């Protein structure tokens, strides 16, 4: 265990966005790690900062984002300190990503085959045209596309969302990365496709030993695909632990609320449950716990200072004043 470096370690990551309306403190002091073949889910509402973390791992943050502090260690190397050239080498080879909107992930003026071939050519160094096409078709086959030749020759607008997402996965794993970041890959797909893509990802994870960082706002999806789950609220970690543990024994009030809100087919409810209130303005954060305004179990101390992340049970962490640091 000690001689093998973990594929991904995120340490005290803090990211701010500089916008015309002010500085948005999108991610604050988030830490987690992913083992080989393991999948960790980042779960949170829209705007909670989970996508930002995913983008940061592959170095694909928009131009107005600034890394304020922290480390992202990909196979032991801090990617935040790399220059453009070194970063380019890492991308695709060590870590890759698929996005929420598969249609927007592909340049509309090029065929899937052209993009896929370019990626394989530049990352695996294959120059031979025949070999390139073979490898590309193989990648398209692995992701379960029934007619790889057709997809190879198609433009993005000619394919459906499900096929495009598979194609995107094909591109991402064609270069044998160690880490795959999946940024809400099923959010824009209907439920049947969702299940298929999740199965595909599980399958690939086992076959290729991928370390998967799965970003979603859907607890149900997270329950299906995660080994460990990290619940994030307004940019900071709220709860973190093995998925069964966290979902069966949720410690943080937010986590509990999230679980309550999932509609259950077995129970008839008069009204769907929801969490009242909305995300705080990330430009002006309160001095205390960031969830306090919406928390039903808030204490006095919650308004005054933010809680620390405490390991309440082995492997199960929570940041809440109800579980104070006993040190």
């Amino acid at each position, binding site marked *: 265990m000690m001689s093998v470096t973990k594929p991904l370690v995120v340490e005290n990551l803090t990211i701010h966005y*500089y*916008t*015309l309306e002010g500085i948005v403190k999108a991610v604050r002091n988030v830490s987690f790690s992913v083992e080989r073949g393991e999948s960790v889910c980042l779960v949170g509402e829209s705007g909670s900062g989970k996508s930002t973390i995913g983008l940061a791992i592959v170095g694909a943050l*928009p*131009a*107005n984002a600034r890394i304020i502090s922290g480390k992202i260690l990909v196979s032991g190397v801090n990617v935040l300190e790399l220059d453009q050239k070194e970063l380019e080498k890492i991308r695709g080879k060590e870590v890759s990503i698929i996005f929420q909107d598969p249609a927007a992930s592909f340049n509309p003026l090029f065929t899937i085959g052209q993009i896929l071939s370019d990626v394989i050519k530049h990352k695996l160094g294959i120059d031979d045209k025949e070999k390139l096409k073979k490898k590309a078709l193989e990648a398209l086959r692995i992701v379960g596309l029934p007619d790889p030749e057709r997809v190879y020759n198609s433009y993005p607008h000619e394919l459906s969302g499900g096929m495009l997402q598979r194609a995107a996965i094909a591109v991402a794993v064609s270069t044998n990365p160690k880490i795959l970041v999946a940024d809400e890959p099923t959010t824009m797909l209907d439920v049947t496709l969702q299940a298929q893509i999740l199965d595909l990802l599980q399958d690939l994870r086992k076959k290729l030993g991928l370390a998967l960082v799965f970003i979603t706002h859907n607890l149900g999806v997270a329950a299906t695909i995660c080994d460990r789950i990290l619940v994030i609220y307004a940019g900071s970690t709220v709860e973190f632990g093995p998925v069964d543990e966290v979902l069966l024994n949720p410690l943080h009030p937010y986590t509990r609320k999230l679980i309550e809100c999932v509609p259950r087919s077995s129970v008839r409810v008069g009204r769907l449950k929801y969490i009242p209130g909305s995300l705080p303005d990330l430009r002006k954060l309160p001095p205390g716990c960031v969830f306090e305004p919406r928390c039903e179990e808030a204490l006095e101390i919650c308004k005054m200072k933010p809680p620390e992340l405490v390991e309440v049970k082995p492997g199960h962490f929570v940041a809440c004043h109800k579980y104070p640091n006993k040190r």
Partner: protein
Amino acid sequence: MIPEDVRVIFRLIKTNPVSLAGLVIVVGFVIVGIIAPYIVPYPEDAWGETYNIEKRYLPPSLEHPFGTDDMGRDVFSRVILGARFSLIIAIGVVGLALLIGIPIGLIAGYVGGKLGTALMRITDMFLAFPPLLLAIALAATLGRGLVNTIIALAISWWPWYARLVYVQVNSIRVLPYVDAARIVGLHPLAIMFKHVLPNALTPVTVQAALDMGSAILEAAGLSFLGVGVKPPTPEWGLLVTEGWSSINVAWWISLFPGLAILITVLGFNLLADAVREAGDPRLRRILLVGRKI
């Protein structure tokens, strides 16, 4: 354009020196255009009523910063007064084009159906014509003069505005909140005036205001080709043309009016660029950041 947008745009213009320059130029132009007759050093020269044979072709000096022309008139005065004529042309062309184009676009977009399609077909026919060409043909037919020039340019321009309004009305008409207003029971005319109109008209009026620069440029071109304003109107394009025959000995007669055109149109275009960038929400978030990709 909701007030928040306006604030953001102003902040952007203030921070970007290039856009700020544009704003300064445009405001300066409008002011000069309005007060021109009162600040002109040699009023009779400006209006073209004089003929001073001793003062012909004088190079730039303190009394005549831009020199004098072939009729001994002070070029500086004529250029200053020319600002007023350019302003009149700019507002006239754009205003008239809006007057024709907005109703057509509105009706075509809101009423739709056969009338709408027919109106748009006519508009498209006009649009297929190279823009200035139609104006030249019209101007040649109507004859020279300030009013004819404005009419000719406006007629070649209204199709763009009609189309802009049409597209806007069409896209707004199908928005959920319009449906909501209709379901709630609002009278169709009320819907049109309170909800559809303001949002449909904003892009076109912004476009029109910034188009004033192009109107000035095109009018100048028409004057050069001999189908614009009549002498002795001190319109900038005409001033440049009048200096053409003597350009080898008296370069100042053509240089300064042309420079005036360049600077004024430049101001409008810089402003147009700034507004366009600020108006696009996707571009906005990268605007404050100086880093390259």
